[in-house]
């Protein structure tokens, strides 16, 4: 089974990209299963269900969605194997840009769009820099020049990745993404595999439900703003 992890900035078109790509995978008579990880609520499962494939939803609720994601990988894998999936698509919410869901030996796709601004690729961090494939959407509504500049900035952050232009409305680019997925190595088992980038510590009193502001209410990992820091760029 190929294990595909899809992350990306909010509203970049992750679900549209994958729905188009799954259509192509289904044409090859492959069994595809999808698991969507979100925070509070999602309706993306309905779009996947309309393809007639098995879909699972994990809502992280009060837990950081990426920590929730990583602590459920074995269960998600077991579920997908029960569905006899040839390809498992695991779509994460991708919110704070600090965590990166990429796992060694899984295919990692990062979906971003041309509208987020040319300086944003540098801000996204490991979610972008540790991915195997970067899918860039919404190219049909910005100028050629901006697309080229944006692509260049992405290449700066992640020189190794294949970069694919994708139109989430028409599905242009889906074929290329399908081929990338088929060219990836199947995974024997997720247990023991390693995250490509460690997830940051987030263990303070507010993680545990504290709501009052003030030093005496703060415990655990606390980091303070360094006001002496000179802006470097």
């Amino acid at each position, binding site marked *: 089974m190929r294990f595909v992890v899809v992350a990306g900035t909010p509203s970049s078109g992750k679900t549209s990209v994958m729905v188009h790509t799954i259509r192509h995978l289904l044409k090859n008579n492959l069994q595809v299963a999808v698991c969507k990880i979100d925070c509070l609520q999602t309706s993306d499962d309905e779009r996947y269900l309309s393809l007639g494939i098995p879909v699972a939803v994990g809502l992280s609720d009060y837990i950081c969605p990426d920590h929730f994601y990583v602590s459920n990988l074995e269960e998600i894998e077991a579920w997908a194997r029960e569905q006899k999936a040839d390809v498992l698509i695991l779509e994460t919410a991708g919110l704070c840009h600090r965590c990166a869901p990429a796992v060694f030996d899984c295919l990692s796709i990062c979906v971003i769009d041309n509208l987020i601004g040319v300086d944003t690729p540098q801000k996204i961090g490991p979610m972008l820099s540790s991915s195997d494939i970067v899918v860039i959407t919404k190219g049909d509504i910005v100028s050629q*020049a*901006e697309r*080229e*500049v944006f692509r260049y900035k992405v290449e700066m952050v992640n020189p190794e990745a294949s970069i694919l232009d994708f139109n989430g409305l028409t599905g242009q680019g889906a074929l290329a993404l399908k081929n990338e997925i088929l060219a990836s190595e199947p995974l024997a088992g997720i247990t023991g595999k390693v995250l490509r980038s460690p997830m940051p510590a987030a263990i303070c009193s507010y993680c545990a439900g504290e709501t009052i502001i003030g030093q005496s209410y703060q415990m655990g990992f606390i980091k303070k703003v360094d006001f002496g820091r000179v802006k470097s760029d």
Partner: protein
Amino acid sequence: MIKHITILGGFDKNGNQEKISELKVCSGEVLAVVGPTGSGKTQLISDIEQYAEEETLTGRKILINGQPVDKPGKKSLSRLVAQVSQNMNFVIDLSIKDFLLMHARVRGISNPEQILPELLYVTNLLSGEPVTLTTNLAQLSGGQSRALMVADVAIISNAPVVLIDEIENAGIDRLQALKILTGQGKIVLVVSHDPTLMLMSKQRVVMKNGGMDKICQTTELEKRVLKDLIGLEEQVASLRERLRQGENLGAEDGIKADVEEKERRILWQEYRYTSL
């Protein structure tokens, strides 16, 4: 260096072999893509853009200089095709100068400052109201944006293939734009519903039901019609410009009719009466 691209035919929407099995466009040439809405014009453009290898919906194959494209070199390939369409906008918050310099550096141009005057000149040649290098991209009108995009594609994006999608309503001098692009030795594909643009190209491919149905070479007679059309457009353009400048038009400003024109009008009137 791309000398020509070839489109090898695939199948139409019903799975029938396309009538046109091979279509070649050389550098410095314009190919017009015509046909009703839904006839497959955009799909043809998209096949070229992704260097189809019989794997897209249409089963077409794209050859460059007569050779299939090497897919492993995808990264450099993406720079072969530049696109301008009327839906495109600038979303970045920078002055024209800063943005063009940024793009030129990305493209590896060694003296970006030196090409700025040329870029500005071409942009203002195409757009109505002139822009300056300090103008912010966000303040550009639709026409000015498209003019800048064409100038940028012609001078900075050294992509040898340019795809132009319905720029007739973009508010720029589109005939001039075509001249500028082909003058750089580019292969230009124009999707258009505009007769002047269709006739500007040496040949046009007619799309029907998803397939390439026919190739029409522009005839000598059509070239004369094109001359008429261009003359007409120039008159309209000068009227537009004078109205914009706050002038009132006089009686002598009607569209100047030649003898043929009169005959044509009579023909049209007869047609209208008989069809009523």
